[in-house]
């Protein structure tokens, strides 16, 4: 009787420890992965590119490494445009999978073609100049 009771106690402790480990592992994985989801990456880059455009002084050329975007798009089998510039509405659209992606406005006036992608270097090139 006593042996069964102590066996139950040991099983309880083991179960408790296992469940704790499982729970905290799930939490760690969640915390580590949530910032690396496509949604967050799309958001991060659309903001980053817009801010770079607005920060660039006329006559500057800025290059942003977007190799991370390429690897996400490849993992999702996405072959469309990763970064799209909407020069009419002043919007940067970043997409890493089929869907709407993430868009962000910038306030600077840009000539069409001011932003281009160097596919070999996996870089986004922003060339700004004063518009008249």
């Amino acid at each position, binding site marked *: 009787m006593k042996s069964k009771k102590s066996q139950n106690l040991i099983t*309880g*402790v083991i*179960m408790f420890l296992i469940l704790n480990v499982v*729970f905290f592992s799930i939490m760690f994985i969640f915390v580590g992965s949530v910032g690396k989801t496509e949604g967050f990456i799309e958001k991060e880059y659309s903001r980053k590119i817009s*801010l770079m455009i*607005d920060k660039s002084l006329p006559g500057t050329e800025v290059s942003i490494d977007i190799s991370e975007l390429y690897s996400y798009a490849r993992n999702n089998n996405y072959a469309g445009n990763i970064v799209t510039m909407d020069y009419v509405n002043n919007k940067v659209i970043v997409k890493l999978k089929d869907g709407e992606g993430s868009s962000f406005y910038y*306030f600077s006036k840009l000539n069409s073609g001011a932003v281009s992608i160097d596919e070999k270097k996996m870089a986004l090139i922003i060339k700004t100049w004063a*518009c008249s």
Partner: protein
Amino acid sequence: MGLFINKKADEKYLSIWMFLIWAIIGVSIVLGVLMFYSVQADVRQIEAQLLTDRLSACIISGFNYEEIAKSNFDIYTTCSIYKNVFDKENLYYFNIDISEEGNESILKTISGGNNWKTECDYQFIKKEDKFPQCAKQDSTAFDSKTNKKYTVSVIAASNQK
């Protein structure tokens, strides 16, 4: 089942309370992480500062009051900023105030929504996340034609989330 129905307090390793505690911890961590990332994605303050810098630098460089005071002076073209995002999208706001040093305001240019100025004034006293984020810059400009000094005060705000 025996695991969950222990009669003695010292044996209760897996009780309903334990699961409740895990649930509370889990929900708190999830909320905390999501809040952390949403704050990181909020770049309104940086945008407001960039707009303030752009407008101040653009007005001060080669400052000519006569030119700025003309009715056909176009701040958007001069400073290379896009009018539509101010008027149509209502995402940004700016207020430019030019005054002769020590005197009252002689020129005001306002763009964007109506309540922003009040909300910005409030923001400068107490930070409020639900309001647009604002930045302010006061600079001195020198008009070489008239040999006069002017104070250029720029307030800009962003509400793009």
